[in-house]
């Protein structure tokens, strides 16, 4: 794949990223479902696994396309296969990323595109940071990208951000029906987001 002279993105290998992401989601599907059973409808792990396996099945075709087109195709696939409320939210993240990113992104372009994609997710979910959602991980990751943090630092920031959703009260989605009873549980979408962030930055770094 042609990625050009793109600094820390030069090693971008989309097929490898897709495989790593699908492996991570599959390995954690049960954990995600357990988290979702506590305060949601208990289908998050299964839904995410179905979606990422569908993306994996077409990884070769996606990887053959220019990065923006590939990301949009992945987003569409996730919308159609994940289902629930997560399908449109994770799908929108990738669709918006694809619309904003360049074919050979450097860190500045990736960061800007990621920022726009977060805005699109917030608009799709009519949500904002602090409401116990995936945004509570995405935003700190964007801040870390802006601040020039390293890959391991970004992964740790994402993990800490997901943990920080535990004491939050859910204000969006099914969990919001529980009100104060949503406090004390990690948001499943925040957890799947940090899993993906760690997988992606570690794969980009060439780490196991």
């Amino acid at each position, binding site marked *: 794949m042609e990625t050009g002279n793109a600094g820390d993105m030069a090693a971008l290998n989309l097929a490898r990223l897709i495989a790593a992401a699908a492996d991570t989601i599959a390995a954690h599907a049960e954990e995600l479902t357990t988290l979702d059973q506590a305060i949601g409808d208990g*289908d998050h792990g299964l839904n995410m696994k179905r979606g990422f396996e569908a993306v994996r099945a077409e990884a070769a075709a996606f990887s053959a396309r220019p990065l923006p087109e590939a990301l949009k195709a992945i987003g*569409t696939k996730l*919308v*159609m296969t994940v*289902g*629930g*409320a997560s*399908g*449109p*939210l994770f*799908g*929108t993240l990738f669709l918006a990323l694809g619309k904003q990113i360049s074919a050979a992104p450097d860190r500045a372009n990736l960061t800007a595109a990621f920022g726009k994609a977060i805005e699109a997710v917030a608009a*799709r*979910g009519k949500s904002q940071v602090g409401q116990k959602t995936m945004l509570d991980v995405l935003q700190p990751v964007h801040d870390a990208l802006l601040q020039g943090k390293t890959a391991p630092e970004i992964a740790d920031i994402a993990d800490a951000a997901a943990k920080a959703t535990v004491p939050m009260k859910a204000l*969006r*989605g*099914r969990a919001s029906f529980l009100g104060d009873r949503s406090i004390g549980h990690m948001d499943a979408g925040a957890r799947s987001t940090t899993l993906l962030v760690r997988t992606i930055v570690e794969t980009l770094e060439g780490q196991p």
Partner: protein
Amino acid sequence: MSNVGIVIVSHSPLVAEGTADMVRQMVGDEVPLAWCGGNGHGGLGTNVEAIMGAIEKAWSEAGVAILVDLGGAETNSEMAVEMIGEPRSQKIIVCNAPIVEGAVMAATEASGGASLREVVATAHELSPS
């Protein structure tokens, strides 16, 4: 048919179909009508592909008003509208209204040849703002 179309999206296919039955009985066949419900895997939920299919089925050049139940139905419906894309997406509106009353009132308005804006306004009147 030049009347505005009505799409009903519920987490439950039984609720969606039942709502559509009520519309047909109370309003008749003058309005393009489609419904969908369920997650596509036999469970409760909504899915974008089915919603896009329902919009196609109820499509009218006058536009389509979508009535939804819980939050996920709204999110998925808005996603479906975006994926249908312009220019048609500009003629599709997800209503903020109770699903059963909204569908019946919107369809009643639509059956008289009202514009999409009027149909949606009628449904929105049912929601406390």
